[in-house]
């Protein structure tokens, strides 16, 4: 099959993935959750801002620092929900269809199995990135409308969060090419959990100046680079003045830009693993 024909097959699979997500009301469920979260967040920001404005003792700098902290907490929650969405959405996309036998009729068609993996991966990534952007736009809109606050570093931070989504989602797709749905779910969540804990260890190490903890955190980030993208994004979302001294305990240890390349390479390797494993899998 020629290149354009292969691309068309991958697009056909991606399109089916999007149609299925809509029909199974996954998009609706995601939108409802996002709306609920943004409503709570919006109310909290509005009340916090009103109280701060009413208190003459709160300076402009204190107010901005507090609003930055609130915004970061908002992004942290949105990031966590988006990562869960990215892991759970495709967790059964390969394993489930292999187990149910749906895959037999698809894979017997004149297409390379790589097109199936790539189509499903692309379709789910589009959905997960859409969800992240929806949440991020909501947080930015709430901060702007409820407190007149415009954060810095958004153009740097959002692509990093998208990369984190890509890492988590690709690990979930790759696991599904080899393991059963339940096993894959446990492993993919565990993969992110390790990164999450490793990130905390690294932050504590940075905040308390304990080198060994930082080293452990960095090693964990290399094994599981998802959470380090969040920490780098959080770093960019803070104004310059708060970054230097490990401000807000979210930037005590900042991953290097090289980690971005590692995360991108990791995603690519996980995707290649998914393709190769699925190519040789007995269906």
């Amino acid at each position, binding site marked *: 099959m020629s290149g354009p024909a292969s691309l068309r097959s991958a697009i056909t699979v991606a399109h089916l993935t999007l149609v299925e997500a809509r029909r199974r009301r996954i998009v609706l469920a995601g939108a409802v959750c996002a709306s609920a979260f943004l409503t709570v967040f919006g109310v909290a920001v509005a009340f916090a801002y009103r109280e701060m404005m009413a208190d003459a003792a709160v300076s402009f700098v204190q107010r901005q620092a507090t609003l930055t902290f609130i915004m970061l907490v908002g992004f942290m929650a949105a990031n966590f929900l988006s990562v869960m969405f990215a892991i759970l959405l495709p967790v059964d996309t390969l394993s489930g269809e292999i187990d149910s036998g*749906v895959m*037999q009729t*698809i894979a017997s*068609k*004149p297409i390379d199995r790589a097109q199936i993996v790539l189509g499903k991966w692309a379709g789910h990534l589009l959905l997960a990135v859409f969800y992240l952007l929806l949440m991020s736009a909501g947080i930015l809109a709430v901060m702007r409308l409820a407190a007149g606050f415009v954060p810095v570093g958004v153009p740097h931070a959002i692509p990093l969060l998208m990369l984190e989504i890509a890492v988590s989602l690709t690990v979930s797709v790759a696991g599904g090419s080899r393991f059963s749905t339940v096993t894959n779910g446990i492993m993919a969540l565990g993969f992110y959990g390790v990164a999450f804990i490793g990130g905390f260890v690294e932050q504590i190490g940075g905040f308390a100046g304990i080198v060994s903890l930082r080293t452990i955190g960095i090693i964990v980030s290399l094994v599981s680079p998802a959470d380090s993208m969040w920490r780098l994004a959080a770093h960019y979302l803070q104004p310059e003045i708060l970054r230097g001294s490990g401000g807000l305990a979210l930037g005590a240890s900042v991953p290097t830009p090289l980690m971005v390349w590692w995360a991108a390479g990791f995603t690519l390797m996980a995707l290649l693993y998914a393709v190769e494993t699925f190519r040789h899998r007995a269906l």
Partner: protein
Amino acid sequence: MTEAAAGRPAAIETRALRRQFGSTVAVADLSLRVGAGEIFGFLGPNGAGKTTSIKMLLALVAPTSGTGDVLGRPLGDRAARARIGFLPEHFRFHETLTAIELLRFHGRLHGLRGVSLEARIDRLLTRVDLLDAADRPLRGYSKGMLQRVGLAQALLNDPELVFLDEPTSGLDPLGRLLVRGIIDELRSNGVTVFLNSHLLGEVEMTCDRVAFVKRGRVVAQRVLSMPAETLDVELHVESAAPGIVEGLSRFGTNASQPRPGVITLQAHGDAAVPELVCWLVQQGIRIHAVHPRRTSLEDVFLDVMGEDERPG
């Protein structure tokens, strides 16, 4: 193989295909040839390796060893897969889709697009009698309807070779009739059909030739489309004069009179029956009934599989 099929190129030819899952041998030695245009039945008890064999032919499972060609191309060749249709044993589907959407999706995977795809979908849904339900989500379909939409899916690309794994399971008698009709149409269009079914009566009515698989090996093959060489015949007569039983030996073998008024023999094929009836009448014997009885495929199946394959 039938004489007609023997002269044609092979649609399927395998040489010692084997598949092991760990220490379990699913298929030990699959060596067979299916001629183009044949309706070929693949029979065996549960766990004999029939489905794994089909999966190897479709490149869904890679053989551990052995080789094979499908439509003149090596196993797994994508160009060959474009000319193949497949209905799996348990046809599963994306249940949120409608029948039209499902067929459109599978058609696009075949590289079909636009008006020609829509026309094929319309034609096939009409053929499997699902046009009225075409816009309903598949989750509301009965098992028989799903089987029929699966059959339409297998025929989307006007295939030259169709694998049907238990195509009539879940179908009522009318549904089975529909499947038989479709297989007949495929036969008249020169399409090769590889049929895996437990319903031996269906296979007997449909197939030109069958292979029996036992413990992952083809242990016997039998042509069904040729007239039987021998035919068991039971005659009910008013009385049989001495010498009549011996006289019948010219029309067959093993003629005997198990009880008064009943004569049995193995006639030399279909053509011998009217001749022996005519001869009996000429001898002045009054005939009450003639019961020709063929050896059924089920009898052959049980004979080939032996006692050890019977449950219990």
